[in-house]
């Protein structure tokens, strides 16, 4: 056992964990008022981690007795998670300062949660999986309730915690069933067992069901989505932005890793579950969003629906499907970060507003922000040639190629429905009489994030290859002998 190699393989994670601990110490000893410094250092740590990840020489290696896997898929998803986390943290600083919640614990907790996400993505063992999930979740429970003096935030955190514990319980139960019926927790060994025609007992199926249920909760897929609207609405907006991006990507990546890795041979066993979850998520996401007046709740349902679309790619269970998931999540990342950047700009008279009606006439009071939001909304509605269209196109094509025609058609129909409420926002911004203008200026970092994300979403079609090729490389991880 060469511990040096192990450390090198997991260097990004180890670096980030150590930075988080160091920053925690720094915060403790410098006391309150160091939040800005720690936030800056945290973002720097994320960027360095990203750099370490990109420079990482090792591909398709495993470490720590095969508990930790390092492959192209992991690299791609980790990249998305790190970018998402860094962008949302950049956006958060101004918000938390204005809302008097600038505590140094916040960035540190977010870093810990990010470490958990990276662990999830690289997990190659049921126990490593559980550890990653819990590290991520525990930090997020606290973060959701970080404004413990407001009722909404603490309620959100509490609900998230109670429901999250239940889902963790399910996850554990599923894991133990799987272990009980196969005798191993290691993904590689599990994959070998099934590849060699290992018996698929009912106990294993039940374990798989519970495992899927636990993971579905983490990505807020129906019917385990109930926490999402309340937590999105209750948590401080900057935190909601974080919730909407990084953990979703990590959760989905883990879902893909678990189902395609150890259980890749059992597509028939889990495909029905995923199809059901995907259909239900797309339907609930589309139908429930229509009636929303709060933009944060709307985004909650939108993310539920988006997870449904991403799961369509997973349901295909093919290399194309996984590539589609990768592309979808990459585009989802930029659309969501951008949209939340706009939501964070929704301040009137030094007070956050979050009703859709508050966007009235934005095209006249603030044409650039309105344009950016319009781009994101058109993209989410899946209207070409914006990026969102390609995301959907990829997953639907993958589904059709695997013969999941009904799934693809339902997906198309729900995107028609959801186009309706995305377009409503555009109509409100462009055609309604202006209400009060938003506070200016929005801040330089916001302007940069908004510009960058909207340009990426708008012009994705001109230069799609960076994202596409990385996603293709990511998908190859599960199909080593693939084309």
């Amino acid at each position: 056992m060469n511990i040096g190699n192990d450390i090198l393989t997991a260097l990004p994670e180890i670096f980030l964990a150590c930075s988080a601990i160091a920053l925690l110490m720094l915060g403790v000893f410098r006391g309150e008022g160091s939040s800005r410094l720690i936030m800056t250092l945290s973002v720097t740590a994320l960027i360095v981690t990203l750099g370490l990840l990109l420079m990482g020489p090792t591909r398709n290696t495993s470490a720590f007795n095969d508990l930790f896997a390092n492959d192209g898929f992991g690299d791609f998803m980790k990249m998305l998670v790190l970018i998402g986390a860094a962008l949302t943290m950049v956006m958060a600083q101004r918000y938390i300062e204005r809302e008097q919640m600038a505590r140094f614990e916040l960035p540190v907790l977010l870093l810990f949660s990010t470490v958990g996400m990276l662990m999830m993505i690289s997990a190659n063992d049921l126990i490593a999986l559980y550890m990653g999930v819990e590290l991520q979740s525990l930090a997020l429970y606290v973060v959701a309730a970080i404004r413990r003096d407001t009722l909404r935030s603490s309620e959100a955190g509490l609900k998230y915690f109670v429901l999250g514990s239940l889902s963790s319980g399910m996850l554990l139960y599923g894991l133990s069933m799987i272990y009980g019926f196969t005798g191993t927790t290691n993904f590689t060994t599990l994959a070998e067992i099934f590849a060699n025609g290992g018996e698929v007992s009912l106990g294993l199926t039940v374990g798989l069901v519970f495992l899927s249920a636990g993971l579905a909760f983490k990505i807020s897929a129906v019917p385990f989505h109930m926490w999402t609207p309340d937590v999105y609405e209750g948590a401080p907006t900057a935190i909601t932005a974080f919730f909407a991006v990084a953990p979703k990507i990590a959760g989905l990546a883990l879902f893909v890793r678990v189902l395609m890795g150890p259980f890749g041979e059992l597509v028939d066993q889990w495909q029905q579950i995923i199809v059901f979850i995907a259909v239900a998520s797309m339907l609930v996401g589309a139908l429930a969003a229509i009636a929303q007046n709060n933009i944060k709740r709307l985004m909650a349902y939108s993310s539920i629906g988006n997870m449904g679309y991403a799961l369509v790619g997973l349901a295909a269970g093919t290399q194309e499907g996984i590539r589609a998931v990768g592309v979808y999540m990459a585009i989802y990342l930029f659309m969501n970060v951008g949209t939340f950047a706009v939501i964070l700009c929704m301040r009137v008279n030094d007070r956050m507003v979050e009703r859709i009606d508050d966007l009235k006439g934005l095209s006249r009071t603030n044409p650039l922000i309105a344009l950016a939001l319009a781009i994101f909304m058109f993209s989410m509605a899946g209207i070409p040639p914006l990026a969102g269209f390609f995301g959907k196109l990829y997953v639907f094509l993958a589904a059709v190629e695997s013969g999941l025609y009904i799934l693809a058609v339902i997906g198309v129909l729900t995107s028609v429905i959801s186009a309706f409420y995305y377009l409503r926002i555009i109509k409100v911004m462009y055609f309604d009489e202006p209400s009060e203008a938003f506070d200016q200026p929005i801040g330089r970092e916001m302007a940069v994030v908004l510009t960058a994300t909207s340009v990426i979403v708008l012009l994705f079609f001109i230069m799609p290859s960076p994202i596409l090729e990385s996603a293709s490389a990511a998908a190859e991880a599960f199909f080593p002998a693939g084309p």
Partner: protein
Amino acid sequence: MNLALIVLLPFIGALFPAFLIRSGRNACAYGTGVFTLVAFILLLVQAPAVFSGQVIQARFEWLPQLGLNVNFFLDGLGFLFALLILGIGLLIILYARFYLSHNDPMGRFYVYLMLFQGAMVGIVLSDNILLLLIFWELTSLSSFLLIGYWRHLPEARQGARMALAVTGGGGLALIGGMILLGQIAGSYDLSEILQAGDQIRSSSLYIPALLLILTGAFAKSAQFPLHFWLPHAMAAPTPVSAYLHSATMVKAGVFLLARVWPALSGTPEWFYIVTSFGLVTMIISAWIAIFKDDLKGLLAFSTVSHLGLITMLFGFGTPLAAMAGVFHILNHATFKAALFMSAGIVDHEAHTRDIRRLGGLLFLMPITATLALVAAASMAGIPLLNGFISKEMMLEEAVHTTYLGQDWILPVFATLGALFSVAYAARFAFHTFLGPVRDDYPHKPHDPPFGMWLPVFILVSLVVLIGLLPGLIAEPLVKITTDAVTGGNTPDYHLSIWHGFTPALFMSMIALAGGLTLMALYLPAKSFRERFPRPEAKVIFEAIIEAIAKVSGQITALAHNGSLQRYLAVMVSAIIAVGFAGYLGSTPLGAGERAMVPVNWPGLVAWVLLVAALGATLMYHHHRLFSLILIGVVGMVVSLTFFYFSAPDLALTQISVEVVTVVLMLLALNFLPKETPRESSSLRKLRDLVLSGLAGLGVAGLVYAVTTRGFESISDYHLAESKPGGGGTNVVNVILVDFRGFDTFGEIIVLGIAALAIYALLDSALHGAAQRRLSKWVPEGVRAMDPHPFILVIATRVLLPLALMVGVYIFLRGHNQPGGGFIAGLVVSIALLMQYMASGFSWAQHRLKLDYHGLIGAGVLAAGLTGVGAWFAGRPFLTSDYTYVHLPVIGEFELATALGFDVGVFLTVVGAVMVALANLSRVGRRADAAYEAQEQATDGKEA
């Protein structure tokens, strides 16, 4: 290459108007026009090749993995459409220059218009259905922007949104259809798909693909019942209506029908769906058009009607009908654009579009009126004009087509449609331009500037020329287009004015006479119409949307009402449902091969106790103290079970853990109300009972299945390896301190963190709002008169040294016999706890001055250092070593390095328990002090 340039030019052109407008309106309009003109010329350059039957292609790779490439091809169909789009586009650009007023932002208008133009050219030249889709949705988007151009008008905003919802939604359905189509054909390139007609029609996916594609096409071409958006889109400036909503965009739907005609047509499904929708649309909207008072509204419905006519022709599925359809596309584009522009001129000059307020304009604006009358005559199908010829062809085809086995249905209804169209054309012509001159126009009209009527003039000239010389002017174009549609099966048919006395001619005469009669009887007809309810599609659309929003709101309110109990119930039900589905889905998981063990008395007693305690907890969980005691009972039964299964060390651990937790919880519960509030309704209790019952059943089934199956236990390995590997015979202890030493190390750290968390939480109770609540706290029930009963005090003090002794004993024997640092720590903690409870905290604190936080730290440190020690021996972290030591009294015993680790565990456990206790006591003493102060205050008052 040229093809790509043709598509690209309008997009490039869209970049400039926003800047050119600074140089004036003329510069803006003509500068924009140049781009269209160049594209138009480039197109004409291709004409010879197209007319000689070539298909020109241009291919670029974009997303080859997806099958999405930038492939263009130009055949007859594409040529006809591109010609219309660019040609009429030029005229519209000229017309709009004069139409838009000085207040309108002209630059923006041209930007949108050019965007639309580019997208539209893209649709008709695409050789890739995915690329086509992209352009398709772009036209919906730019149309949305153009309809909403006059933002200040509420109808413009509503119209724009409705149009986008319908056409954009249809476009998304089209995506589904196209993906299926590409999947069947194995390629997303149109040129390949069109070759694969038989394969497509015989595929099982043919019907879904057909339905989705038709939905998209019908939404775009405003076919009934998706027609309602088009009249409301008329809120757009008239150039837009003329361009998008009559000549080009709405034709995209029929273009698509023509494009996929070789691949999809020829089946009964195609025939009945397409023909029926076309026929119904043609008749209904023609009937509505007759009674529209708004000039543009009338033209809008007539457009819908003509689109229905074309759709119907493509539905017939015969090459000749396709030819008629293609020809009518050309004709309709010319005369309808001319009519729209005339209507725009009238609106522009008279400041009204209401037919009831117009009339007699022939004398005030003779040029416009003459042009409009000719165009209207063509629309009515008067001979010598182009509308006549294509209408004849349509009627002729209707005569030869059987519908539902009946020969008469199509001819009769086609004639009826033609009749209505004569009527509305007559109404448009007579009520606007003929009749006496009035003196109450909102604005005195006169002919517009040259630039405004020139485009109309050009179009009307085409109407007349095609009408007079169809064979010369239109036939080559129509033929190559039909070739493209039918895949080279163009019938040998010559366009001409006179075909002899055919049935179609008689039908035309009937239509003409009937239409004029209907117009003569306009008022009775109108009152006849008003007797029937006229559903307003917009109202229905809005009602449907409102209903959906309401249902969605209700569902959300029901499912996401914020109640945590409900969320939990949903999640648990879902997991139960999925679990049972999995359980029942495959072979039932019955008993395994292991035989059941016979029931014996101790087991039964334990089981009864456990169930009874559980039931009692359920019944009395509102009484906090009682439920705590019941939990203690459960703990006892569990430890007895361990004991019964020959696991004395586990039993010992369980008992001591049980004691410590119960005591600590007892102290904590002291500050809470003695009873919890009753909140659940009996209905909810019932629901929860059912849910938990089902979940319990499921788990019981699983447990039964698992326990009756054989398994390979890992205990044999541990039993065998315990002594040689870890140097101890107490397997549990060896696992804890050696085999799984890393886990234990983690666990004691967690224990320490938990203790610190208890400290932090309870400490916050001594500050702020919590502290204020605490100072007002009044204990429920009666306070004991003697907080430190004498017997208890004596007993605990006597027991203390004994307990400590037992602790040390258990600690030392731990490695080989039941015991160990963890249990020892708990035993010592219990001994100390008893002192604190019996004699009071301050008494005990006074005698045991220890920093409990330090204790925890020391424990973790000791354990860690032991682990590190192994490194010096060149072994991995936490590997243990052992030797035998002889002590005088105790005798020989084994000294393992694990002992150091066990010391760490011991210290941490004691420290953690003591930290919890100390902080609970702090809260208690603060409360007591506050309470006594209150008592004294009240006593003082009473005295």
